[in-house]
């Protein structure tokens, strides 16, 4: 059997979960003895590849770009892990939900800007009406809450998945 292919993606989040992932430190070496990291914000691959075995998804789905990417990720991955509170609950990105998009953009790009206030329409993707957790759009196989999830929990999760076990996420919790 070929080596398992691991990917990580970063949607609407703060990258804190990826930082926690890096906090695996030397245990990363142990993980990548057994698997390959085929796509991640922290490696230099531009295209999300086909045939990914495990994908850790950080961040909520907030924009059309996020939605496009998570659908592609779902198509190309066997197992998706909602990785951290933003992916699991929408967390901080979801704080805008009661406000609505137009007042939000006005606040950020008009009311608080003194020089040439305008809402950007070029290059940046359009926001969805609300920011939602990943499982509102695609099926999620494993939920790992935490803001961020502790490195030990990430290690256990990957260790279990690589060994073909149902991952043990007990000990995880919302927040820190």
């Amino acid at each position, binding site marked *: 059997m070929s080596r398992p292919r691991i990917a990580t993606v970063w949607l609407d989040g703060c990258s804190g979960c990826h930082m926690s992932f890096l906090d695996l430190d030397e245990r990363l070496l142990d993980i990548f003895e057994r698997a390959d990291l085929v796509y991640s914000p922290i490696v230099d691959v531009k295209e999300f590849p086909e045939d990914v075995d495990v994908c850790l998804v950080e961040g909520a789905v907030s924009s*059309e770009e996020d*939605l496009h990417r998570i659908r592609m990720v779902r198509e190309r991955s066997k197992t998706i892990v909602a990785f951290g509170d933003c992916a699991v609950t929408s967390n901080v990105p979801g704080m805008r939900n009661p406000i609505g998009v137009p007042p939000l953009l006005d606040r950020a790009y008009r009311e608080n800007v003194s020089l040439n206030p305008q809402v950007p329409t070029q290059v940046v993707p359009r926001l*969805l009406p609300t920011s939602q957790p990943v499982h*509102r759009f695609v099926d999620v196989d494993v939920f790992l809450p935490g803001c961020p999830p502790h490195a030990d929990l990430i290690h256990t999760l990957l260790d279990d998945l690589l060994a073909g076990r149902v991952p043990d996420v007990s000990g995880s919790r919302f927040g820190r």
Partner: protein
Amino acid sequence: MSEMPAAGRPLRRRVITEEVHEGPARATAYVCEAASCLSAQSHDVTVRLGERAAEAGLTDVAVKRVGCIGLCAAGPLVEIAETGQLFERVRPDDVEPVVGALKRVKPGDARRPQGPFFEKQVRVATENFGRVDPESLDDYLAAGGYEALRRVLSEMTSTEVRDGITGSGLRGRGGAGYPTGLKWTTVAKAQGAQKYVICNADEGDPGAFMDRSVLESDPYRILEGMAIAAFAVHATEGYIYCRAEYPLAVARLRTAIRLAQRAGYLGAGIMDTSFTFDVQIRLGAGAFVCGEETALIASVEGRRGTPRPRPPYPAVQGLWDCPTLINNVETFASVPAIVRRGPGWYAAIGAGKSRGTKVFALAGRVVNTGLVEVPMGMALREIIFDIGGGIIDGRPFKAVQTGGPSGGCIPAEHLDKPVTYESLIELGSFMGSGGMIVMDDTSCMVDVAKYFQDFCRDESCGKCTPCRVGTTQLWMLLDLITRGEATLADLAQLERLAGIVQRMSLCGLGQGAPNPIFSTLRYFRDEYLAHIVEKRCPAGVCAISQPAEVMA
């Protein structure tokens, strides 16, 4: 409704017998002055009819205000007492046909059959409807009023009264059908120096108006029923908890209480015995949940109207922690007849464990919208098609909703099932207080479920989590379905959540809130699936937008 007399403004511009003639009347016109007909100017009909009769020189006829005649859809209603001739949609400026009929009445005229709407009914709680003037104590007495209380006070012990009610098989008419005699016995045996009797008149089910009609048409009857109950359970004080949205009922109750007090039927030493019992009115402020007995008690006590877990039941620990008997309006209205005519007579009516009669408010897409009283066990088809006259415009019958927001929708295939507490529960519905909303093929059953869920989430008091949050989440899922945006996973979620709200909620409001969902899923799952899978509403009610790429 500007035509409705406001509470407190007297309705006592009396146009009755004495003003038109001397001595007994040869002919009498009964004009319905319950809320429905009143709102269509029936009081003006009464006045105009009196004037026209006098102008026509009819000195031996009477025009009398009466309570609900029942056929509300055709109001204002006028009935000729002697012949039973019924005039529908009588306008104040066109009373001549009635005057003509009054002229033609001859001594010895017999009442003619009035058609199935009236002939198929059996009137017990509503026996005085359309016959007595709701505000006249004399009229109530002339119709046999207070005979039952007189017998109770002069001939019976409290045990005999309770045994009589138990023997009649009467069960709570507010919906749950708890045996009334058992409840009375529990209160009677409960320890406590002070006990209370409460009449629950906080009728709030959409489409239900049984209690309102009883209060408007025969208020003394409630006072008599409560007094008998008070005697049976050793209570001295009573409360009628009536919703403030019923100004006419409240006004008539106030009049009845005042006149009954003055005539010695309420207060200290009733009917020259040592029995003391008085009644006060408490007005609800528009919260549906206050029909739940523990919330009702909290509201009477002046606290926030929210329920508490039972036990302890109010029968043991109720108003101000004293043993309290709470019965519904219709239950109390049945009591005087049972005492007067005997428990055996009452128990002989009905079917199975549901004895006696039940009042229903027929509403929705049925020809004869109105108030009917039928023996328990009558088939739904008989009520809707024979009495109700079938569906408007002859459209196909689709379902009948009984039991209000805690009830369910019963489809055509069960139209021949008898109406009893047990059979309705078996069908996934509920007797409830007696609302019957008839629906034809223009109703979308998912939309109906959504309507009732919207009602429940709006009326949730907010005390317990499953009802406060869960009813809104159920509504959100139903909304998703009616907008054509739901998946089969949402449907599964709806069913799961409905079960949790039912099991975990604190009171009947939350526990019953999922019932419309359960029953529509049971009989009309195909309609849910049409919305979800085919993205269409079979009844054409829901506006389903064509699928857009982005979920919005």
